[in-house]
């Protein structure tokens, strides 16, 4: 069992104990639903484990009583575990920020708003808005995409590519929409690429039902990580960052090779040389390319292409 699975199991047992002591003889179903047990077997395992734990001596009078009696869960002889544990700062913030973030979207409802208000009130009795969290504004097509993902509707989208600024029309099977780093994304199986792709929802110009359907995944997917993970064909560049460009090392997943305080040298991985080229143009004299042929070529090409437009429009 890995360390994190051990931690999860212990966290659940320690949360279950005070609750079950305060609410004696709960039904198996209620315990499973409340505490997210996936099977009766999983709950039985935890109860069996508790049956072997208790106070030193570890005789019949020292061990906890924990078992399933038909439809009921019996937990006894564990009064020392009757007080609920505090929420760690991380846990409290996780709960509150999740509630706040969703409450501000079209997925929020009155029950959630009340829950957030009660939590805030319990944590900060004297002030009302100490913590705030908001998701990015919802783009126009979000609702359509969400429904299509739920219903298994194949869509035809007109998409303005983030990396090339070119427009394509493609048939996609939407899987899930999620917000990350200030934007909404759509994870979909793209029939044009024949693979899963991540689309920025704000770059989708138009959406139409294609008339075709697909089978949505049986279990909801977890939000995908939008951070870029370098693949085998990634392009690398070495950059020196001046004081005004140090944020790059925090914003992008880079490797810091050297940091003198004045200048920071990083190794930057990207899927497309244009990512590095735009970054270098954006940083101007705050950054310098040390190594990376593809990025150098793309930067020069892009620089001249943009400058050419300024020459022409000046004339």
């Amino acid at each position, binding site marked *: 069992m890995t360390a994190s699975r051990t931690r999860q199991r212990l966290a659940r047992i320690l949360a279950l104990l005070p609750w079950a002591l305060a609410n004696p003889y709960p039904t198996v179903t209620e315990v499973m639903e409340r505490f997210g047990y996936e099977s009766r077997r999983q709950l039985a395992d935890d109860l069996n484990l508790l049956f072997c734990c208790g106070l030193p001596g570890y005789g019949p009078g020292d061990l906890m009583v924990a078992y399933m009696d038909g439809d009921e869960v019996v937990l006894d002889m564990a009064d020392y575990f009757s007080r609920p544990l505090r929420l760690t700062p991380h846990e409290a913030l996780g709960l509150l920020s999740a509630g706040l973030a969703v409450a501000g979207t079209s*997925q929020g409802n009155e029950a959630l708003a009340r829950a957030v208000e009660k939590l805030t009130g319990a944590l900060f009795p004297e002030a009302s808005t100490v913590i705030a969290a908001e998701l990015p504004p919802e783009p126009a097509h979000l609702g359509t995409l969400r429904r299509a993902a739920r219903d298994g509707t194949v869509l035809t989208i007109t998409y303005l590519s983030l990396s090339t600024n070119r427009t394509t029309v493609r048939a996609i099977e939407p899987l899930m929409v999620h917000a990350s780093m200030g934007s909404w994304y759509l994870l979909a199986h793209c029939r044009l690429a024949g693979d899963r792709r991540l689309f920025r929802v704000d770059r989708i110009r138009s959406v139409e039902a294609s008339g075709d359907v697909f089978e949505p995944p049986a279990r909801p997917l977890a939000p995908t990580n939008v951070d870029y993970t370098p693949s085998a064909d990634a392009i690398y560049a070495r950059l020196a960052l001046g004081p005004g460009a140090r944020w790059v090392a925090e914003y992008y997943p880079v490797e810091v090779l050297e940091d003198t305080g004045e200048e920071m040298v990083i190794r930057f991985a990207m899927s497309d040389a244009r990512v590095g080229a735009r970054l270098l143009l954006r940083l101007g004299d705050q950054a310098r390319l040390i190594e990376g042929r593809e990025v150098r070529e793309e930067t020069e090409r892009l620089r001249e292409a943009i400058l050419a437009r300024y020459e022409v429009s000046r004339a």
Partner: protein
Amino acid sequence: MSTVVERLINLLAYLVDSTRPVTADQIRNTVAGYENLSDQAFHRKFERDKASLRELGIELEQEATDAWEVEWGYVVPESNYRTIEPGLTDEERTALALAVHMVRSGGWPSGANGLLKLGGARLADTDTPVGADLGLGSEHLGLIFQAVLERRLIRFLYRGRSRSLCAYGMHHRRGHWYFAGVEPEQAGAIRTYRLDRAERLELVGEPDAFPRPEGYSARDILSALPWEQQAPKRALIECDAGIAWWVENRFPDARTVGQSDAGGTILEIPYTSDSLLDMVIHLDDGAVILDPPELRAEMVRRLEAGR
């Protein structure tokens, strides 16, 4: 392989049931799971177990076993127990459970354990494939929340400068956590800091070190960010046909003022900072700044800087 969980539960049972501090030796000789270990092996195991409990929010503390302070033992202090009771109904828990299910932090579920500690919740059947990630808030996220919650002074490095702060509140926006407050003993304006740019953040001093101003709201602070307060200037940007629609959506206050000869659209966009240049660079050669001259000159200067 349930021995770790069993040992930790036995350890905790022994500690919370005891009315006096218990020494490491007593633990070693009494609690099931620590028998037959060398000195070194015991200490390693015990340290690891304390760390595992700490991650769940259970901090063991040391206290003298008697008035002479010869021997020290471990206790589970009062502060480990919950004092707040939000009193959520089942319906409210379920709503919260759905939010927790949707929202992650740097790829990890962020509120699940907190919800369990409040008594768990039934997750309503959800067929809504929606999610959100609030991004990694750095290892400082729990610490800054604690500072805000307990009103404790913090110290940190920001852009190379050491600062102390009475942090009043936190705000998450567009993928980043911010915190805001004033420097102690300075009646200055409330300043906002981005959490992932704060280095070596630490709590200093005791709780209740400062009052939060009456009527303080983390929302007000954010809407009063300096670049949102200034009166906007206006830029004219010529955008190619394929991207003009996106720029218009991106800037709800943009206005179409004309068409270019090449079939592009000329948009008038209110702006308050140079970050408009960053957006234009991301349009590659699909856009050009026509006006004002100083913004256009800055663009050309920046492009030529790396030549």
